[in-house]
């Protein structure tokens, strides 16, 4: 797999100027101001054909972390004959924006102690927020791989998979984080980044939805539900696209209304 250079980046974070009414609604604020009568061209990093290596401005991951994350995510959901994988879909961008935002800071996480490991039935019991979990785990991973002079991005795909499996099985202690816990969150968030609405910065060009045939956020099926067994043919639609089809990303939509 080609190494990804870090020299040049194109901003993919959502349009800076106009905040469309749909996005205001996503934040729960009543939107009454009429929109401008013409649409700004917008940042089209979400244009089709931008599959392949992601060009993302990373705000949360350091350069070294981003290299690992890009390669790891791409093994979790690889590009293949069906289409792009996590990298082409912008999953590292999704992770970066979530971990750098309210979710990473511990939204929807009960954070009081005391802390005990607990049984599997009791779930996550570490004090770390997702952001802390990632930084802590990645620091340990990168340090271990550096010590072995075996950077992840330089490994063959088989060796990368083997390394990920070792994380998954809990073979490593990542400065206190059981590696299985880190792997579980990484996999979960990779799947989220792949299949969530592109408003969050992943699922670029709705590539994942196209792959499985999920139509997206516009979902009126009253008549089509009668067509038993007939494939539903329609471009997927994002909750954040405008009338011209541009998706206006807003990765900072909070979990809580």
């Amino acid at each position, binding site marked *: 797999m080609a190494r990804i250079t870090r020299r040049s980046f194109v901003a993919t974070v959502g349009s800076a100027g106009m905040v469309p009414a749909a996005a205001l609604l996503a934040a729960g604020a009543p939107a009454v101001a009429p929109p401008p009568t013409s649409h700004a061209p917008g940042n089209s990093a979400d244009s089709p054909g931008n599959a392949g290596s992601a060009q993302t401005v990373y705000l949360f991951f350091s350069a070294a972390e981003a290299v690992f994350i890009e390669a790891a995510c791409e093994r979790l959901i690889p590009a293949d004959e069906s289409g792009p994988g996590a990298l082409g879909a912008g999953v590292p961008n999704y992770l970066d924006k979530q971990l750098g935002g309210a979710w990473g800071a511990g939204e929807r996480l009960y954070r009081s102690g005391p802390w005990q490991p607990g049984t599997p039935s009791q779930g996550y019991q570490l004090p770390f927020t997702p952001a802390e979990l990632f930084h802590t785990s990645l620091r340990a991973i990168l340090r271990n791989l550096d010590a072995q002079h075996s950077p992840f991005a330089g490994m063959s795909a088989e060796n990368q998979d083997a390394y990920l499996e070792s994380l998954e099985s809990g073979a490593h202690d990542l400065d206190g984080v059981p590696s299985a816990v880190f792997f579980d969150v990484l996999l979960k968030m990779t799947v989220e980044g792949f*299949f969530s609405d592109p408003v969050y910065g992943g699922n670029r060009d709705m590539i994942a939805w196209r792959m499985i045939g999920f139509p997206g956020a516009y979902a009126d099926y009253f008549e089509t539900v009668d067509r038993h067994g007939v494939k539903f043919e329609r471009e997927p639609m994002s909750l954040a696209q405008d009338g011209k089809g541009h998706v206006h990303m807003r990765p900072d939509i909070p979990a809580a209304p």
Partner: protein
Amino acid sequence: MQRLKEVDVVVLGLGMVGSMVAKELAAAGYKVVGLERGEARFTVPEFQSPAIHDELRFAVRKALMQDNTREPVTFRNHASEVALPIRRWESFLPGTGLGGSMVHWNGQTYRFQANDFQLATRTRERYGKRFLDPDLTIQDWGVTYEDLEPHFDRFEYLLGTSGKASNIKGQRQPGGDPHESPRSRDYPTPPQKELHQGALFRKAASSLGYNPFPQPSSNLSQPYTNPEGMKLNACVFCGFCERFACEHFAKSTPQTVILPVLLANPNFELRTGCQVQRINLDSARKHATGVTYIDAVGREFEQPASLVITSMFALNNVRMLLLSGIGTPYDPVSGRGVVGRNYTYQTVSSAAAYFDQDVIVNPFMASGASGTVINDFAGDNFDHGGLGFIGGAYIGAVNSGGRPILYHPVPPNTPAWGKRWKQAVIKHYNHTIIIGVHGSSIAHRGNHLDLDPTYRDAWGQPLLRMTFDFPQNDLKMSAYLTAKAAEIGKAMGAKEVAGSPREGPYTTQQYQSTHNTGGTVMGDNPRTSVVNRYSQSWDVSNVFVIGASNYPQNASWNPTGTLGALTYWTIDALKNKYLKNPGPLVSA
């Protein structure tokens, strides 16, 4: 702390139950204050699409649910363990806010059967006293199905529920569930359209001699105006039902069926952002004087009231009684006490049927309740002799959407990630039908709720502690019924069927159901119940507890339909008995 002017009634929790009670009592002329911890929200603008059709936000991050960062629940499987906080909701998702859980429910609206209300008596009669494990603490409710039938009817007509009756006053009607207990009339609207997966299930189930019928749905099949004058629209099968709110005024929620009427009544005052700390009692601890709450700004108030109704989410009802010292807390070691006793849940499993590429399912087209089900293995509808368990499940093609973050079925032995996983997801997404098995939950002396000794909420109060694991009875039941579901899957023509029966231990880390029931059990005997048959506390006669916390054990079906009936039954008792002559309605 500020002491406010006394009112007639204070209602804790403005979900459906609280909204119904408040509406009826305010309409009867009483001054009612409603205290809701969450915020007010309405179909416009909060529930509008496309913004509401955001799986990550609402289904994964659980935006509409109770704020667990301030008040989670602690959990352990057994009393020998230390309970730890459920730091993220997964297994169950308590609601909050104006309208409560029924804002984002699936609309599945069943009635429990006559047998369920006298489960202990009828089980003994049919199978003998020795049939049951002595650790199982099932009980009769103290009300019968016949008591509740007019109230079931009233609730279904409030909602406009779409379905097909089978037994109208003993007369058999085609197309419905032959096992249902008698109803006074048909559903207010006809069943929703059948999905493709429902049609496949129906044909297979019929071929095996079962009796499939359309799931009763409160996502309406057609426009409807309810007796309160509220107009609802037809559901469009958008596939964003449970965990999401409905933009089309098509889901029966407090907002669409009753709240506008309640909020227009000047006898009623809504206060949101109010966290009730306790119900206050007089010095003899036999009479409630009102409640103490803290508002969103952190100010403490005392709201005096003649009558206190706690109508919160089931778990919160239990906690409120424990925090207030109403009723004796249950001690599982001695078996004495009642508050927190008989906590039950739902025993949920499934069988996945994987079809060839030519079977196109379109899972994303669905309402929350547009399934096709059978009740042939629910409740006591089949002979349990020799099986070693009681209870049952409805089984059906009940999938309510195809949202891909959480729904991307793959056959067993598929790796959890990588190319083969991706290929399997693509291959099976539109060609899989999940057959749900929705099973009852039997009461066990070890499963209970109490207050946690260590962890506190943001207001400094002890959290509710849940001690629960699946009794062997329910695991046996699940194995038996999941196999039945798999047989139906094979009869549907699936290439491969994989049953996943429920296995212990119960985990809080996988979503199963938000049907947390029990803890303030109703009954005839104050030694084994918290409230009497009118939902009135045995200990404090001006406190009424209305919720699925009153269920002595949980039956095969979703609790909401029965809770609506119980609510109207209780409202009837409040208006016509209690408020005319306050005091205990049943002698202990």
